[in-house]
């Protein structure tokens, strides 16, 4: 139903998420933002069960900000990813596990860009590109085919557009628009929303 994608370049990470908030068969909202800003250079993309997504993501968000307040410096993306995974793992075998799938994208001043894939079973993998949702089945092979570690920003956006086109063509559900953001050493930038015009 929902779709997340992330592509890591040499000095940036490009992420996109669909904008639909649905309730059974109805689209309740067409402009819903699934990205949560953890810090100046870290974004958490979160999909999954209705209330869990917001609750979990906001919990992580507030804790990362608290770390900054207490210690005076921010968590690195790797540390934030591991912290998130730990929380998922802790709740996994409780009575209230969080059923959420996440992508954490960030830029570290020393390590460079990073994209971390996490799923509801609290696995964690640092990956050059990743996707969540049914749409991932359709787009991962496109990413496999065309991805290169030295993609430029425009090439990465083109690759993203290829994926979205494929979704439009073959995915049974209608995902009309996608929020796109780019993280690099300057911070988080909002790119133009990808809307699938009638073609």
């Amino acid at each position, binding site marked *: 139903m929902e779709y997340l994608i992330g592509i890591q370049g040499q000095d940036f990470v490009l992420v996109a998420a669909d904008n639909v*908030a649905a309730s059974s068969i109805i689209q309740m909202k067409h402009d819903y933002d699934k990205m949560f800003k953890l810090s100046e250079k870290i974004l958490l993309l979160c999909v999954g069960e*209705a*209330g869990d997504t917001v609750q979990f993501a906001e919990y992580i968000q507030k804790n990362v900000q608290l770390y900054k307040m207490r210690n005076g410096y921010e968590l690195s993306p790797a540390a934030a990813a591991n912290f998130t995974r730990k929380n998922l793992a802790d709740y996994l075998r409780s009575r*209230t596990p969080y059923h959420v799938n996440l992508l954490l994208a960030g830029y570290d001043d020393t390590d460079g860009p990073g994209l971390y894939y996490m799923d509801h079973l609290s696995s964690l993998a640092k990956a050059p590109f990743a996707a969540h949702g049914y749409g991932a089945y359709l787009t991962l092979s496109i990413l496999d085919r065309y991805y290169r570690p030295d993609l430029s920003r425009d090439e990465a956006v083109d690759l993203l557009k290829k994926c979205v086109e494929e979704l439009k063509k073959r995915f049974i559900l209608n995902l009309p628009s996608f929020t796109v953001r780019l993280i690099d050493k300057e911070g*988080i930038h*909002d790119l133009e929303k990808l809307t699938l015009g009638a073609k």
Partner: protein
Amino acid sequence: MALQDICNFQSVFEDSLTTEYPAVPHGKKIASNYVSGLPFSNNKSLFHFYIPVAEYLDESPIQFGQISTVQNCSADSSEDPFLTSSTLPTCLPFASSQSVPLPFPMAHGTTTLAFMFQGGVLAAADTRSSCSGLVACPASQKILPIHSHLVGLTSGTSADCALWKRILARELRLYQLRHGRRLSTSGAAKLLSHMLHPFKGTELCVAATLCGWDGGEVDDGCDYHGGTETGPGSHGETTKNQMTEQKNFVDSTNAKVSLAKDERFSFSEQCFIRKKMNLSGPSLFYVCSDGTRLRGMLFSVGSGSPYAYSILDQGVHWGLTVDEAKSIAREAVYRATYRDAYSGNCVDMYHITSKGWTRRNREDLKEEYYREKQRRKHEKTERRDVTFSD
């Protein structure tokens, strides 16, 4: 029942060693048997008494959905006298008392809708409460005012909704007393969402739409005057912002160039700007017990909502006049009641503006149905006449 029993036991105790059993609590046979059965000297055994409601409260809220049959039934029957007449005994506990999973998810048997437009927020709902296929109450109230500038539409289990509305109203009032200003609709929605979160996964079913008008920062309960003083300027601005927000509705969340500036704002700035923009003015939130919390311009909830959505999507836009808005809301509820079995009877409408909410008289949709039937018949005869004249 618990209170009555405890009170009666206390009075029985105070009468101590008399052999009269004056206040036999009515209704519960178990109680009276115990009272008559046991000697007074044995204090403890009397209090080892099965008081289902107390146990029910002791259990963690997470356990609600897994209460065993016996407990659940007695808990239900004991709570009946305390439910107000307009709210119905919910049908859900009866289903869950079988302690078997339900064959399909219970649909919220209702049609409620709300949308924002230039004249404020309009909320409309039907008035039918159904229970397992029969109409339990044809005149229930699904739009509950929470305070002078906030109204909540309820969908889901009637009792749950009524209870949580009251809890929310209490918490909002406490906030107002403590902080000297009203909590915004966004804050109220967040509060409700967090209060409902521990009950996720249980049978609790509340899908509420909160429609409100947020005031200016400084309120102190001196109504709106403080807000509207800066009103014409800031109000105009917010409506303009809202209008441009509406225009860019489809286009953006992040590139919220709704302030008519072309530069791209960074994420944090935009969040700030968005907050600033919505500090006062109409506001609409959907909160569900499964954890969803969404802000929007138009929401419809319930089993009749798809039918209502299709009517609303055709006609709702920012620039509606108040009368047009009322008529389209009424039309949407009417169409939904026409098609959906679980919605019907009358339609309630509330209009929320900067001055608070106003309620329209409840209108019976039966009249509308007959009028439409007349119209159709009339059209048919007209058409026939035309063809004959050809």
